[in-house]
């Protein structure tokens, strides 16, 4: 579904991503794990068109999207839940969701109902100002907003950030459910254990390079990964 080939991304003179190559197959949950500043978020931003790679190619669903505008990429069914949730704080929950469906003309009502089915909490708070939601609810809203276009693939950037453990596991359950209902997921997480638990495959990112890749299960048992990312 997604093929990233040899992308190199720069922030000015700083070479942030080095020859990144990886792929996500239809129906998978794939995670990118690694420390702060390893380049995970940069990778997602590049895929969704917020940043540009100087070389290499990104192919989604059979089309190259490495030179495509972000709004067109969204229209093709690839959606990005940015780090830190980034919901529209002064709009209501429902307006936020409506913004999510900005690029689609039909079936909004249906999408809205589906999102409310999946996140009953959001339905309760539909006319509440989004800035007054709790962290977990804001994360749900961010995901709900991304689901409004019925994406083929969803990229989640640090969905666990700043949430209480109970909420983290709730959010992860939702990701798994989403995946079971047919959405391919690319997950970026600092919390490696968490990410590995729910992913099928995973890539370990260090200083803008992919240093290791395997099935999640194998990585969980990999001594090197254990030492570096799982705390022993």
């Amino acid at each position, binding site marked *: 579904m997604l093929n990233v080939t040899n992308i190199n991304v720069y922030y000015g003179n700083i070479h942030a991503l080095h020859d990144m190559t990886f792929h996500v197959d239809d129906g998978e949950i794939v995670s990118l794990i690694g420390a702060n500043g390893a380049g995970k978020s940069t990778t997602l931003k590049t895929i969704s068109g917020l940043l540009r790679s100087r070389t290499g190619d990104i192919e989604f669903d059979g089309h190259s999207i490495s030179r495509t505008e972000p709004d067109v990429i969204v229209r093709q069914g690839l959606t990005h839940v940015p780090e830190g949730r980034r919901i529209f704080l002064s*709009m209501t929950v429902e307006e936020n969701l409506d*913004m999510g469906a900005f690029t689609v003309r039909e079936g909004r009502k249906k999408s809205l109902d589906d999102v409310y089915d999946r996140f009953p909490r959001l339905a309760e708070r539909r006319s509440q100002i989004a800035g007054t939601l709790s962290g977990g609810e804001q994360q749900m809203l961010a995901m709900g907003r991304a689901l409004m276009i019925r994406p083929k693939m969803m990229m989640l950037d640090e969905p666990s950030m700043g949430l209480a453990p109970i909420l983290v596991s709730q959010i992860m359950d939702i990701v798994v459910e989403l995946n079971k209902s047919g959405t391919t997921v690319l997950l970026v997480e600092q919390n490696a254990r968490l990410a590995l638990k729910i992913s099928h495959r995973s890539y370990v990112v260090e200083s803008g390079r992919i240093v290791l890749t395997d099935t999640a299960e194998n990585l969980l048992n990999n001594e090197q990964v254990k030492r570096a990312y799982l705390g022993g």
Partner: protein
Amino acid sequence: MRENRKSFFGRTILNTCLCLAFFLIVEYMIGAKILNRYYTNILNLVLIYVIAAVSLNLTCGYLGQLPLGHAGFMSIGAYTAAIITTRFSIPDLGPISGEAVLFLLATIAGGILAMVAGIVIGLPALRLKGDYLAIITLAFGEIIRVLVQNIKITGGAMGMGGIGRYTGFGWGFFWTIMVVAFTFLLVNSRHGRAIKSVREDEIAAESVGINLTYYKIVAFAGAAFFAGVSGSLFAHHICYLEPGNFGYNMSIEMLVMVVLGGLGSISGSIISATVLTIVPEVLQTFASWKMIIYSLLLVVVMIFKPSGLMGDYELSAARLVRKVFRKKEETPKLPENYTEGEETDE
């Protein structure tokens, strides 16, 4: 919450009636000399500034950018319209005055040229964020001023005289309604929500698939058009243009009106443009104190009401009516995010 069609029509009819009533009353007062020439002049000036301020609020308040070149767009509109009305004439067509048609067309032409300029400088400038846009638009305003000073058709530094005094209360009011209706309908539409989402969070807006550049340009160009219109009205109000009219100070004055009234409030812009146009006139007799009082007023408002007089609240005739008539029937629902701006409060 979406409002239903019926209440939309209700509000439209109500607001149209109020506007019409206001228009007729003022026209009557002008006709009956209750408002003498001096007051009528101030009234026209108020409307000109209201048009400029409301349009600037679109880029400043709703789009969340900081442009400092609004006077540049006014200047383009003013000179374009003035050049057209001084060089061409349209014969009267029965009851329709050729002069009025010419003025209308000239004003639209001025607006369109300003809009084109807005698109041309907006395309590169709006890709930049924050301070850079301010600097580019600031430079743009100055470039226009210098340009006007040095080309022949605008009369150069000598200025341009002999412009017909076409701007009356009718035209001012007509364009005020136009800019208020345009802004109100735009910001409350789907596109308006996109514009506001750009203000809220550009990354989020982009990640839900909003074309940032497109919506920035739409808001910026719309604002430029009405700035051009207000420039044209200004030109045919003072009848004599010189490059210094549309300097940096005027851009800042516009910005002050918008910020003081409240970013994202049409009624706020109307009120503050009205007050800030009238106050200096009233203080004319204390000329040396004028700037001090003016500045104090700003400082005081910013200390006690940093979000501007109105914040992002709108006055609404419809809501007032509802309040008066249904006080006992129902408790007010959740605050609606958008309500009708009332044009008749100056």
